[in-house]
């Protein structure tokens, strides 16, 4: 039972480099989310998707891009890495929109450092 799988688990980038954080889920969930978690700051929503082909900005989208070509995959792209993007990134999925009893299922995170 894989659930939500994120790769890589750890990564160090140089300023200005680009990379894609991968997220895949095997629960056939329509809703998927990307959060970042900074120490002592809780989780902040970067982007979300309500289904294949549909994405929208969350609270902190600047410097990131997403795509949702399939139900299973929701990659997060950093085009020009900046030190402010050093964080732990979590991908999550859910069967329905917030407001129901359904949980958001989280992956184990990608720890990203920009030096």
């Amino acid at each position, binding site marked *: 039972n894989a659930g*939500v799988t994120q790769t890589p688990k750890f990564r160090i980038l140089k300023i200005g480099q680009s990379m894609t954080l991968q997220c895949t889920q095997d629960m056939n969930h329509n*809703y998927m*989310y990307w*959060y970042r978690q900074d120490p*002592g*700051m*809780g*989780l*902040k*929503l970067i982007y*979300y998707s*309500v289904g294949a082909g549909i994405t*929208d900005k*969350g*609270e902190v989208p600047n410097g990131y891009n997403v795509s949702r070509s399939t139900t299973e995959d929701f990659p997060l792209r950093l085009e020009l890495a900046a030190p402010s993007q050093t964080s732990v990134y*979590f991908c*999550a999925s859910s069967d329905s*929109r*917030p*407001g129901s*009893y359904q*949980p*958001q299922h*989280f*992956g*184990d*995170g990608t720890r990203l450092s920009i030096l």
Partner: protein
Amino acid sequence: TQLLEQSPQFLSIQEGENLTVYCNSSSVFSSLQWYRQEPGEGPVLLVTVVTGGEVKKLKRLTFQFGDARKDSSLHITAAQTGDTGLYLCAGVPNSGYALNFGKGTSLLVTP
């Protein structure tokens, strides 16, 4: 964004003690969820509360949603070392798709 304030930020207690953590907001939420996060892992849902005044029990954990649906509390009875972790509350707004997370309460239970 509707802000959720959690208190205390850090809590260190001994096994067997009781504790309460709080989640407060000036805004009304349609429901509220509590998650627990262990080091190196993503958050895992503990409970969802929907009705104002609702109380839910999960073994030694008791969750309460305020009458006005602006605040919530989590009470742990006879804490165990396995309760150690980061406890996050997340408010569900009346519209939209984003959960609003608090900053969390980091709990350490020592033997």
